[in-house]
Protein backbone atom coordinates (compact mmCIF):
# COMPACT_ATOMS: atom_id res chain seq x y z
CA UNK A 1 0.00 0.00 0.00
CA UNK A 2 1.49 3.34 -1.02
CA UNK A 3 -0.19 5.55 1.54
CA UNK A 4 2.73 7.96 1.48
CA UNK A 5 2.02 8.64 -2.16
CA UNK A 6 -1.62 9.39 -1.38
CA UNK A 7 -0.54 11.84 1.30
CA UNK A 8 1.73 13.56 -1.22
CA UNK A 9 -1.17 13.67 -3.68
CA UNK A 10 -3.40 15.20 -1.02
CA UNK A 11 -0.72 17.77 -0.31
CA UNK A 12 -0.64 18.59 -4.03
CA UNK A 13 -4.39 19.17 -3.93
CA UNK A 14 -4.07 21.49 -0.92
CA UNK A 15 -1.27 23.46 -2.57
CA UNK A 16 -3.35 23.75 -5.74
CA UNK A 17 -6.30 25.01 -3.71
CA UNK A 18 -4.18 27.62 -1.93
CA UNK A 19 -2.67 28.82 -5.21
CA UNK A 20 -6.09 28.84 -6.85
CA UNK A 21 -7.48 31.19 -4.20
CA UNK A 22 -4.44 33.46 -3.94
CA UNK A 23 -2.02 33.55 -6.87
CA UNK A 24 -4.83 32.86 -9.33
CA UNK A 25 -7.49 34.51 -7.20
CA UNK A 26 -9.06 37.89 -7.68
CA UNK A 27 -6.41 40.57 -8.17
CA UNK A 28 -3.92 37.85 -9.01
CA UNK A 29 -2.80 36.29 -12.28
CA UNK A 30 -5.99 35.92 -14.31
CA UNK A 31 -5.32 36.17 -18.04
CA UNK A 32 -8.43 37.51 -19.80
CA UNK A 33 -10.15 37.69 -16.44
CA UNK A 34 -10.43 33.96 -15.82
CA UNK A 35 -8.01 31.79 -13.83
CA UNK A 36 -6.97 28.23 -14.62
CA UNK A 37 -8.83 25.44 -12.82
CA UNK A 38 -5.74 24.31 -10.99
CA UNK A 39 -7.42 21.86 -8.62
CA UNK A 40 -9.16 20.18 -11.53
CA UNK A 41 -5.83 19.98 -13.35
CA UNK A 42 -4.13 18.32 -10.39
CA UNK A 43 -6.94 15.78 -10.06
CA UNK A 44 -6.66 14.97 -13.77
CA UNK A 45 -2.88 14.75 -13.63
CA UNK A 46 -2.97 12.35 -10.66
CA UNK A 47 -4.62 9.77 -12.91
CA UNK A 48 -1.51 7.80 -13.86
CA UNK A 49 0.02 7.88 -10.40
CA UNK A 50 -2.69 7.04 -7.86
CA UNK A 51 -4.77 3.91 -7.47
CA UNK A 52 -8.32 4.36 -8.75
CA UNK A 53 -10.06 4.14 -5.36
CA UNK A 54 -7.69 6.64 -3.78
CA UNK A 55 -7.99 8.83 -6.83
CA UNK A 56 -11.76 8.94 -6.43
CA UNK A 57 -11.46 9.76 -2.73
CA UNK A 58 -8.93 12.48 -3.54
CA UNK A 59 -11.31 13.95 -6.12
CA UNK A 60 -14.17 13.90 -3.64
CA UNK A 61 -12.04 15.46 -0.89
CA UNK A 62 -10.70 18.17 -3.20
CA UNK A 63 -14.22 18.93 -4.34
CA UNK A 64 -15.54 19.16 -0.79
CA UNK A 65 -12.74 21.56 0.12
CA UNK A 66 -13.62 23.69 -2.91
CA UNK A 67 -17.27 23.62 -1.90
CA UNK A 68 -16.43 24.64 1.66
CA UNK A 69 -14.24 27.52 0.48
CA UNK A 70 -16.60 28.62 -2.26
CA UNK A 71 -19.99 30.25 -2.24
CA UNK A 72 -22.11 27.55 -3.82
CA UNK A 73 -24.03 24.58 -2.56
CA UNK A 74 -21.97 21.98 -0.71
CA UNK A 75 -21.31 18.80 -2.66
CA UNK A 76 -21.37 20.19 -6.20
CA UNK A 77 -17.62 20.34 -6.71
CA UNK A 78 -17.31 17.06 -4.80
CA UNK A 79 -19.49 15.32 -7.37
CA UNK A 80 -17.78 17.13 -10.22
CA UNK A 81 -14.21 16.31 -9.25
CA UNK A 82 -15.15 12.73 -8.37
CA UNK A 83 -16.45 12.37 -11.90
CA UNK A 84 -13.31 13.99 -13.31
CA UNK A 85 -11.15 11.64 -11.22
CA UNK A 86 -13.13 8.63 -12.45
CA UNK A 87 -12.77 9.68 -16.07
CA UNK A 88 -9.09 10.42 -15.57
CA UNK A 89 -8.55 6.98 -14.02
CA UNK A 90 -10.31 5.30 -16.91
CA UNK A 91 -8.08 7.23 -19.31
CA UNK A 92 -4.84 6.59 -17.43
CA UNK A 93 -3.58 4.29 -20.15
CA UNK A 94 -3.82 7.21 -22.57
CA UNK A 95 -1.44 9.33 -20.49
CA UNK A 96 1.59 8.71 -22.60
CA UNK A 97 4.60 10.65 -23.63
CA UNK A 98 2.51 12.18 -26.38
CA UNK A 99 2.07 15.79 -25.41
CA UNK A 100 -0.85 16.18 -27.80
CA UNK A 101 -2.81 13.31 -26.27
CA UNK A 102 -2.13 14.36 -22.69
CA UNK A 103 -3.08 17.94 -23.57
CA UNK A 104 -6.27 16.79 -25.21
CA UNK A 105 -7.24 14.78 -22.13
CA UNK A 106 -6.52 17.73 -19.83
CA UNK A 107 -8.48 20.13 -22.02
CA UNK A 108 -11.40 17.77 -22.51
CA UNK A 109 -11.72 16.75 -18.87
CA UNK A 110 -11.46 20.36 -17.68
CA UNK A 111 -14.28 21.40 -20.01
CA UNK A 112 -16.24 18.37 -18.87
CA UNK A 113 -15.73 19.32 -15.23
CA UNK A 114 -16.81 22.91 -15.76
CA UNK A 115 -19.88 21.84 -17.70
CA UNK A 116 -20.87 19.25 -15.08
CA UNK A 117 -20.50 21.87 -12.35
CA UNK A 118 -22.67 24.35 -14.25
CA UNK A 119 -25.36 21.73 -14.81
CA UNK A 120 -25.29 20.58 -11.19
CA UNK A 121 -25.29 24.18 -9.99
CA UNK A 122 -28.30 24.96 -12.11
CA UNK A 123 -30.02 21.81 -10.89
CA UNK A 124 -29.48 22.94 -7.30
CA UNK A 125 -30.69 26.49 -7.86
CA UNK A 126 -27.41 28.33 -8.34
CA UNK A 127 -28.49 29.81 -11.69
CA UNK A 128 -25.01 29.23 -13.11
CA UNK A 129 -26.31 28.65 -16.60
CA UNK A 130 -27.48 32.28 -16.65
CA UNK A 131 -23.95 33.56 -16.00
CA UNK A 132 -23.14 36.34 -18.47
CA UNK A 133 -19.60 34.98 -18.97
CA UNK A 134 -20.54 31.31 -19.03
CA UNK A 135 -18.63 30.31 -22.17
CA UNK A 136 -15.46 32.10 -21.06
CA UNK A 137 -15.67 30.50 -17.62
CA UNK A 138 -15.93 27.06 -19.21
CA UNK A 139 -13.41 27.35 -22.03
CA UNK A 140 -10.68 29.64 -20.66
CA UNK A 141 -9.82 27.52 -17.59
CA UNK A 142 -9.43 24.58 -19.97
CA UNK A 143 -7.08 26.59 -22.19
CA UNK A 144 -4.96 27.70 -19.22
CA UNK A 145 -4.97 24.12 -17.89
CA UNK A 146 -3.72 22.99 -21.27
CA UNK A 147 -0.79 25.39 -20.96
CA UNK A 148 -0.11 24.44 -17.35
CA UNK A 149 -0.43 20.70 -18.02
CA UNK A 150 3.22 20.25 -18.92
CA UNK A 151 4.74 21.70 -15.71
CA UNK A 152 2.04 20.25 -13.43
CA UNK A 153 2.24 16.73 -14.90
CA UNK A 154 6.03 16.94 -14.80
CA UNK A 155 6.14 18.03 -11.15
CA UNK A 156 3.61 15.41 -10.09
CA UNK A 157 5.52 12.76 -12.00
CA UNK A 158 8.66 13.84 -10.20
CA UNK A 159 7.25 13.69 -6.66
CA UNK A 160 5.14 10.61 -7.22
CA UNK A 161 8.00 8.47 -8.54
CA UNK A 162 7.03 7.76 -12.11
CA UNK A 163 9.47 4.88 -12.25
CA UNK A 164 7.09 2.56 -10.43
CA UNK A 165 3.76 4.06 -11.35
CA UNK A 166 2.77 0.75 -12.90
CA UNK A 167 1.47 -0.36 -9.52
CA UNK A 168 -1.69 1.58 -10.06
CA UNK A 169 -4.55 -0.52 -11.25
Amino acid at each position, binding site marked *: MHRGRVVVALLAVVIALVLQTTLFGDGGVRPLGVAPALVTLVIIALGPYVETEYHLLLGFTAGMLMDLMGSGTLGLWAMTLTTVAYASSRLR*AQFTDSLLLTGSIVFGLTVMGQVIFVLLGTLFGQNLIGDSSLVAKIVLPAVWNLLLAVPVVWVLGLVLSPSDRGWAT
Partner: protein
Amino acid sequence: MFPTSGRRLTRATVLFLSLIAIGFLIATFDVRSEGDSVSNVMREGTQSIFTPMQKGVRWVASPLIGFVDGVSNIAGLREENERLQDRIVVLEAREREVAAIEEEVRQLEAIVGVEAPEELPTVTARLYSSGPSAFDNVRYIDKGANDGIVAGQAVIDEQGLVGRVDLVSANDARIRLITDPLVSAGVRIRSTNETGIVSGRGDGPLRLEMFRATEAVYEGDLVVTDGSRFPPGLVVGRIAETADAEVGFVLRTTVNPSARLSEVDYVKVIIGWTALDADLSDGVVDTNTATTTTTTVPPTTSTTVPSPEEEG
Protein backbone atom coordinates in the same frame (compact mmCIF):
# COMPACT_ATOMS: atom_id res chain seq x y z
CA MET B 1 0.81 -0.24 -19.25
CA PHE B 2 -1.66 -0.13 -16.37
CA PRO B 3 -3.38 -3.48 -16.18
CA THR B 4 -6.83 -3.47 -14.67
CA SER B 5 -8.85 -6.37 -13.37
CA GLY B 6 -12.58 -6.67 -13.74
CA ARG B 7 -13.05 -7.06 -9.99
CA ARG B 8 -11.09 -3.90 -9.19
CA LEU B 9 -12.90 -1.97 -11.92
CA THR B 10 -16.19 -2.94 -10.39
CA ARG B 11 -15.05 -1.86 -6.95
CA ALA B 12 -13.95 1.48 -8.37
CA THR B 13 -17.25 1.96 -10.15
CA VAL B 14 -19.20 1.14 -7.02
CA LEU B 15 -17.10 3.58 -5.03
CA PHE B 16 -17.59 6.21 -7.72
CA LEU B 17 -21.36 5.81 -7.65
CA SER B 18 -21.36 5.83 -3.85
CA LEU B 19 -19.39 9.08 -3.72
CA ILE B 20 -21.72 10.67 -6.26
CA ALA B 21 -24.68 9.60 -4.14
CA ILE B 22 -23.05 11.05 -1.01
CA GLY B 23 -22.35 14.29 -2.86
CA PHE B 24 -25.94 14.43 -4.01
CA LEU B 25 -27.19 13.91 -0.45
CA ILE B 26 -24.86 16.61 0.89
CA ALA B 27 -26.05 19.03 -1.78
CA THR B 28 -29.69 18.25 -1.08
CA PHE B 29 -29.14 18.65 2.66
CA ASP B 30 -27.36 21.96 2.12
CA VAL B 31 -30.12 23.32 -0.10
CA ARG B 32 -32.88 22.16 2.23
CA SER B 33 -31.14 23.51 5.32
CA GLU B 34 -30.64 26.87 3.57
CA GLY B 35 -27.13 27.45 4.86
CA ASP B 36 -27.75 26.56 8.50
CA SER B 37 -25.19 26.71 11.25
CA VAL B 38 -23.73 23.26 10.51
CA SER B 39 -22.57 24.14 7.01
CA ASN B 40 -21.47 27.59 8.17
CA VAL B 41 -19.37 26.07 10.95
CA MET B 42 -17.80 23.69 8.42
CA ARG B 43 -17.07 26.55 6.05
CA GLU B 44 -15.59 28.70 8.80
CA GLY B 45 -13.49 25.81 10.07
CA THR B 46 -12.11 25.03 6.62
CA GLN B 47 -11.40 28.67 5.92
CA SER B 48 -9.62 29.13 9.25
CA ILE B 49 -7.36 26.19 8.41
CA PHE B 50 -6.47 27.61 5.02
CA THR B 51 -6.22 31.28 6.06
CA PRO B 52 -2.59 31.23 7.30
CA MET B 53 -1.45 29.48 4.12
CA GLN B 54 -3.43 31.85 1.92
CA LYS B 55 -2.09 34.94 3.67
CA GLY B 56 1.45 33.59 3.41
CA VAL B 57 1.18 32.77 -0.27
CA ARG B 58 -0.53 36.07 -0.98
CA TRP B 59 2.30 37.91 0.74
CA VAL B 60 4.97 35.97 -1.15
CA ALA B 61 3.17 36.19 -4.48
CA SER B 62 2.35 39.90 -4.33
CA PRO B 63 5.53 41.04 -6.15
CA LEU B 64 4.99 38.41 -8.84
CA ILE B 65 1.36 39.41 -9.26
CA GLY B 66 2.36 43.07 -9.43
CA PHE B 67 5.02 42.31 -12.03
CA VAL B 68 2.65 40.29 -14.22
CA ASP B 69 -0.01 42.95 -13.81
CA GLY B 70 2.45 45.70 -14.73
CA VAL B 71 3.73 43.88 -17.80
CA SER B 72 0.24 43.14 -19.03
CA ASN B 73 -0.83 46.75 -18.57
CA ILE B 74 2.28 48.56 -19.77
CA ALA B 75 0.84 49.32 -23.19
CA GLY B 76 -2.07 51.22 -21.76
CA LEU B 77 -0.15 53.08 -19.07
CA ARG B 78 0.75 56.14 -21.15
CA GLU B 79 -2.80 56.65 -22.34
CA GLU B 80 -4.10 56.06 -18.83
CA ASN B 81 -1.65 58.60 -17.44
CA GLU B 82 -2.80 61.30 -19.85
CA ARG B 83 -6.41 60.54 -19.09
CA LEU B 84 -5.81 60.74 -15.36
CA GLN B 85 -3.94 64.06 -15.69
CA ASP B 86 -6.96 65.53 -17.46
CA ARG B 87 -9.21 64.06 -14.84
CA ILE B 88 -7.19 65.63 -12.03
CA VAL B 89 -7.67 69.09 -13.52
CA VAL B 90 -11.43 68.57 -13.70
CA LEU B 91 -11.62 67.13 -10.18
CA GLU B 92 -9.61 69.97 -8.70
CA ALA B 93 -12.07 72.42 -10.15
CA ARG B 94 -14.97 70.39 -8.80
CA GLU B 95 -13.37 70.14 -5.39
CA ARG B 96 -13.34 73.92 -5.16
CA GLU B 97 -17.00 74.04 -6.16
CA VAL B 98 -17.93 71.32 -3.65
CA ALA B 99 -16.15 73.15 -0.85
CA ALA B 100 -18.19 76.23 -1.60
CA ILE B 101 -21.42 74.21 -1.69
CA GLU B 102 -20.58 72.47 1.59
CA GLU B 103 -20.10 75.81 3.27
CA GLU B 104 -23.45 76.94 1.91
CA VAL B 105 -25.14 73.75 3.18
CA ARG B 106 -23.63 74.23 6.64
CA GLN B 107 -25.04 77.71 6.78
CA LEU B 108 -28.47 76.50 5.67
CA GLU B 109 -28.44 73.68 8.23
CA ALA B 110 -27.57 76.12 10.95
CA ILE B 111 -30.51 78.23 9.88
CA VAL B 112 -33.07 75.42 9.97
CA GLY B 113 -31.55 73.80 13.05
CA VAL B 114 -30.64 70.52 11.36
CA GLU B 115 -27.52 68.83 12.62
CA ALA B 116 -24.99 67.70 10.07
CA PRO B 117 -25.17 63.93 9.67
CA GLU B 118 -22.37 61.93 11.18
CA GLU B 119 -20.35 59.60 9.03
CA LEU B 120 -21.12 55.95 9.38
CA PRO B 121 -18.30 54.06 11.08
CA THR B 122 -16.36 51.75 8.81
CA VAL B 123 -13.62 49.16 9.11
CA THR B 124 -10.92 48.99 6.47
CA ALA B 125 -9.97 45.47 5.48
CA ARG B 126 -7.70 43.82 2.98
CA LEU B 127 -8.75 41.06 0.63
CA TYR B 128 -6.45 38.08 0.85
CA SER B 129 -8.30 35.36 -0.98
CA SER B 130 -11.13 34.66 -3.37
CA GLY B 131 -13.35 31.71 -4.19
CA PRO B 132 -11.73 28.61 -5.66
CA SER B 133 -13.55 28.66 -8.99
CA ALA B 134 -14.65 31.13 -11.64
CA PHE B 135 -18.23 30.66 -10.49
CA ASP B 136 -17.57 31.80 -6.92
CA ASN B 137 -18.36 35.47 -6.44
CA VAL B 138 -16.89 35.70 -2.97
CA ARG B 139 -13.82 37.34 -1.44
CA TYR B 140 -12.24 36.90 1.98
CA ILE B 141 -11.12 39.84 4.12
CA ASP B 142 -8.74 39.95 7.06
CA LYS B 143 -11.18 41.50 9.54
CA GLY B 144 -13.97 39.71 11.37
CA ALA B 145 -16.24 39.69 14.39
CA ASN B 146 -13.47 41.02 16.63
CA ASP B 147 -13.53 44.21 14.57
CA GLY B 148 -17.29 44.64 14.81
CA ILE B 149 -18.19 42.97 11.55
CA VAL B 150 -21.42 40.98 11.40
CA ALA B 151 -23.21 39.25 8.54
CA GLY B 152 -25.29 41.52 6.35
CA GLN B 153 -23.11 44.62 6.50
CA ALA B 154 -22.35 46.49 3.29
CA VAL B 155 -18.87 46.48 1.78
CA ILE B 156 -17.63 49.34 -0.38
CA ASP B 157 -14.53 50.54 -2.12
CA GLU B 158 -13.74 54.09 -3.20
CA GLN B 159 -15.88 53.65 -6.31
CA GLY B 160 -19.02 52.10 -4.92
CA LEU B 161 -20.79 49.08 -3.51
CA VAL B 162 -18.72 45.89 -3.58
CA GLY B 163 -21.04 43.46 -1.83
CA ARG B 164 -22.22 42.19 1.50
CA VAL B 165 -20.63 40.31 4.38
CA ASP B 166 -22.19 36.87 4.44
CA LEU B 167 -19.98 34.75 6.69
CA VAL B 168 -18.00 35.94 9.70
CA SER B 169 -15.43 34.31 11.94
CA ALA B 170 -13.38 35.93 14.68
CA ASN B 171 -10.68 37.45 12.49
CA ASP B 172 -11.94 36.92 8.94
CA ALA B 173 -15.08 37.43 6.95
CA ARG B 174 -16.44 36.47 3.56
CA ILE B 175 -17.95 38.96 1.17
CA ARG B 176 -20.53 37.98 -1.40
CA LEU B 177 -20.09 40.31 -4.37
CA ILE B 178 -23.00 42.18 -5.94
CA THR B 179 -22.31 40.22 -9.14
CA ASP B 180 -23.38 36.98 -7.45
CA PRO B 181 -26.61 35.71 -9.03
CA LEU B 182 -28.06 35.15 -5.56
CA VAL B 183 -27.53 38.74 -4.46
CA SER B 184 -29.85 41.62 -5.17
CA ALA B 185 -30.26 45.12 -3.83
CA GLY B 186 -32.96 47.76 -3.82
CA VAL B 187 -31.79 50.77 -5.79
CA ARG B 188 -32.90 54.21 -6.86
CA ILE B 189 -32.17 55.97 -10.13
CA ARG B 190 -30.59 59.26 -9.16
CA SER B 191 -32.05 61.26 -12.04
CA THR B 192 -35.68 60.07 -11.72
CA ASN B 193 -35.76 59.00 -8.06
CA GLU B 194 -37.62 55.82 -9.07
CA THR B 195 -36.76 52.53 -7.42
CA GLY B 196 -35.93 49.07 -8.68
CA ILE B 197 -33.91 45.98 -7.91
CA VAL B 198 -30.47 45.08 -9.24
CA SER B 199 -29.26 41.50 -9.16
CA GLY B 200 -26.00 39.86 -10.13
CA ARG B 201 -25.44 37.83 -13.28
CA GLY B 202 -22.25 36.09 -12.26
CA ASP B 203 -20.04 38.59 -14.00
CA GLY B 204 -20.13 41.92 -15.80
CA PRO B 205 -23.16 44.23 -15.76
CA LEU B 206 -25.92 43.79 -13.19
CA ARG B 207 -29.55 43.20 -14.12
CA LEU B 208 -31.92 46.06 -13.23
CA GLU B 209 -35.67 45.56 -12.96
CA MET B 210 -38.09 48.40 -12.19
CA PHE B 211 -41.65 47.31 -11.61
CA ARG B 212 -43.35 50.68 -11.36
CA ALA B 213 -41.18 52.82 -13.60
CA THR B 214 -42.87 55.78 -15.25
CA GLU B 215 -39.82 57.39 -16.79
CA ALA B 216 -37.11 56.11 -19.09
CA VAL B 217 -33.59 55.50 -17.84
CA TYR B 218 -30.64 56.61 -19.91
CA GLU B 219 -27.17 55.29 -20.40
CA GLY B 220 -24.91 56.82 -17.76
CA ASP B 221 -27.67 57.52 -15.22
CA LEU B 222 -26.37 57.00 -11.71
CA VAL B 223 -27.84 54.11 -9.69
CA VAL B 224 -27.62 54.22 -5.89
CA THR B 225 -28.88 52.04 -3.07
CA ASP B 226 -32.32 52.90 -1.72
CA GLY B 227 -31.68 52.02 1.90
CA SER B 228 -33.60 48.76 2.04
CA ARG B 229 -30.77 46.24 2.10
CA PHE B 230 -27.76 48.53 2.08
CA PRO B 231 -27.25 52.00 3.52
CA PRO B 232 -28.99 54.55 1.33
CA GLY B 233 -27.05 56.52 -1.24
CA LEU B 234 -24.19 54.11 -1.94
CA VAL B 235 -23.18 54.22 -5.57
CA VAL B 236 -23.97 50.91 -7.29
CA GLY B 237 -23.14 51.86 -10.85
CA ARG B 238 -24.39 53.53 -13.99
CA ILE B 239 -27.06 52.47 -16.46
CA ALA B 240 -25.40 50.57 -19.31
CA GLU B 241 -28.27 50.65 -21.79
CA THR B 242 -31.06 53.16 -22.26
CA ALA B 243 -34.52 51.68 -21.65
CA ASP B 244 -38.02 53.08 -22.00
CA ALA B 245 -40.75 52.70 -19.41
CA GLU B 246 -44.02 51.23 -20.62
CA VAL B 247 -47.11 51.21 -18.47
CA GLY B 248 -47.86 47.72 -17.23
CA PHE B 249 -44.47 46.34 -18.19
CA VAL B 250 -41.34 45.85 -16.14
CA LEU B 251 -38.47 48.09 -17.17
CA ARG B 252 -35.42 45.90 -17.64
CA THR B 253 -31.89 47.02 -18.40
CA THR B 254 -28.33 46.56 -17.15
CA VAL B 255 -26.07 48.48 -14.82
CA ASN B 256 -22.29 48.67 -14.96
CA PRO B 257 -21.00 48.30 -11.38
CA SER B 258 -18.88 51.23 -10.25
CA ALA B 259 -16.71 49.24 -7.85
CA ARG B 260 -13.53 47.77 -9.28
CA LEU B 261 -14.65 44.25 -8.48
CA SER B 262 -11.84 42.45 -10.27
CA GLU B 263 -9.06 44.74 -9.02
CA VAL B 264 -10.14 45.64 -5.53
CA ASP B 265 -7.48 45.12 -2.86
CA TYR B 266 -8.76 47.10 0.12
CA VAL B 267 -12.40 47.57 1.07
CA LYS B 268 -14.40 49.24 3.78
CA VAL B 269 -17.08 47.44 5.75
CA ILE B 270 -19.83 49.75 6.98
CA ILE B 271 -20.29 48.55 10.53
CA GLY B 272 -22.59 51.34 11.63
CA TRP B 273 -25.56 50.25 9.62
CA THR B 274 -27.44 46.99 9.29
CA ALA B 275 -30.37 46.17 7.09
CA LEU B 276 -33.80 46.50 8.65
CA ASP B 277 -34.95 43.37 6.89
CA ALA B 278 -34.74 40.05 8.65
CA ASP B 279 -33.60 36.86 6.94
CA LEU B 280 -30.06 38.07 6.41
CA SER B 281 -28.33 35.40 8.41
CA ASP B 282 -26.79 33.86 5.33
CA GLY B 283 -26.27 37.15 3.60
CA VAL B 284 -28.22 36.04 0.55
CA VAL B 285 -30.96 38.37 -0.42
CA ASP B 286 -34.24 36.87 -1.44
CA THR B 287 -35.39 38.89 -4.39
CA ASN B 288 -38.97 37.93 -3.75
CA THR B 289 -38.98 39.65 -0.38
CA ALA B 290 -36.86 42.66 -1.26
CA THR B 291 -38.46 45.81 0.01
CA THR B 292 -37.96 49.44 -0.74
CA THR B 293 -38.07 50.74 2.80
CA THR B 294 -36.06 53.90 3.21
CA THR B 295 -34.37 55.11 6.33
CA THR B 296 -33.00 58.38 7.56
CA VAL B 297 -29.51 56.99 8.04
CA PRO B 298 -27.07 59.19 6.18
CA PRO B 299 -24.72 57.82 3.55
CA THR B 300 -21.02 57.32 4.09
CA THR B 301 -18.55 59.77 2.78
CA SER B 302 -16.41 57.52 0.66
CA THR B 303 -19.04 56.33 -1.76
CA THR B 304 -21.73 58.89 -1.54
CA VAL B 305 -23.79 60.20 -4.36
CA PRO B 306 -22.31 63.13 -6.21
CA SER B 307 -24.39 66.23 -6.53
CA PRO B 308 -26.50 66.66 -9.65
CA GLU B 309 -23.96 69.18 -10.90
CA GLU B 310 -21.26 66.57 -10.63
CA GLU B 311 -23.33 64.04 -12.45
CA GLY B 312 -23.82 66.53 -15.27
